[in-house]
């Protein structure tokens, strides 16, 4: 079972793909924040924001959204490539990864519940902008499990 001289060994390929997946997840979180945060700011303080800043927010939000789509397409291509290589797929998604995914989703769900509960608790006292609130919940719901996975799988 030693590494063959021709081409990288299976372990090397798995490690390289693990790194790619990790980079893609970090990029996905980054672009999601770039996409959502300017929109949330724009919705939260629409009148207090200078026109130039508002335009910047719109531009950043659009750029983030576009990058997100590009990254999702890249991730989809990555998944297809892995799906066609069962020996790589099984190693990339072994039981440790399965357990980390479940743990990350559970923790992300708890964080989302905390945000919902905070919104419910604040609602009687503060006029919360609905659009900004929904975008925040969506952003937290998507990014929190990804961040927890990255943290749990840090090595």
């Amino acid at each position, binding site marked *: *079972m*030693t*590494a063959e001289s021709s081409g990288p*060994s*299976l*372990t090397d390929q*798995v*490690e390289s793909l*693990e790194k790619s997946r990790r980079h893609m997840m970090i990029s996905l979180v980054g672009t999601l924040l770039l996409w959502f945060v300017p929109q949330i700011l724009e919705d939260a303080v629409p009148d207090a924001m200078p026109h130039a800043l508002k335009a910047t927010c719109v531009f950043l939000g659009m750029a983030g959204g576009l990058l997100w789509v590009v990254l999702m397409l890249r991730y989809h291509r990555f998944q297809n490539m892995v799906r066609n290589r069962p020996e790589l797929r*099984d*190693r*990339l998604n*072994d*039981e*440790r*990864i399965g*357990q*980390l995914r479940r*743990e990350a989703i559970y923790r992300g769900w708890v964080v989302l519940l905390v945000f919902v509960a905070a919104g419910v608790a604040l609602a009687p006292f503060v006029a919360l902008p609905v659009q900004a609130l929904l975008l925040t919940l969506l952003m937290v719901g998507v990014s929190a499990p990804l961040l927890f996975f990255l943290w*749990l*799988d840090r*090595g």
Partner: protein
Amino acid sequence: MGHPDLTNRLKVLRAERDWTQAELADRVGVSRKTINTIERGVFAPSAVLALKIARVFGVAVEEVFMLRNAQDMNGPAS
């Protein structure tokens, strides 16, 4: 992810056979990182994975994985 009561002899068994973590990972069918986290006690494998690991070493699962305070669990000595 790990279990405080579980310990293992993965490193010793690997060293006896002169296997790297990558070689063991290839034989078991998991990633090297999974072997590394099991070895360090960060991740507790399922019974199936523990049995697979024991099989590639050619030993009983109890020779690879054991409870830290196994004697306590067997009750007081007579």
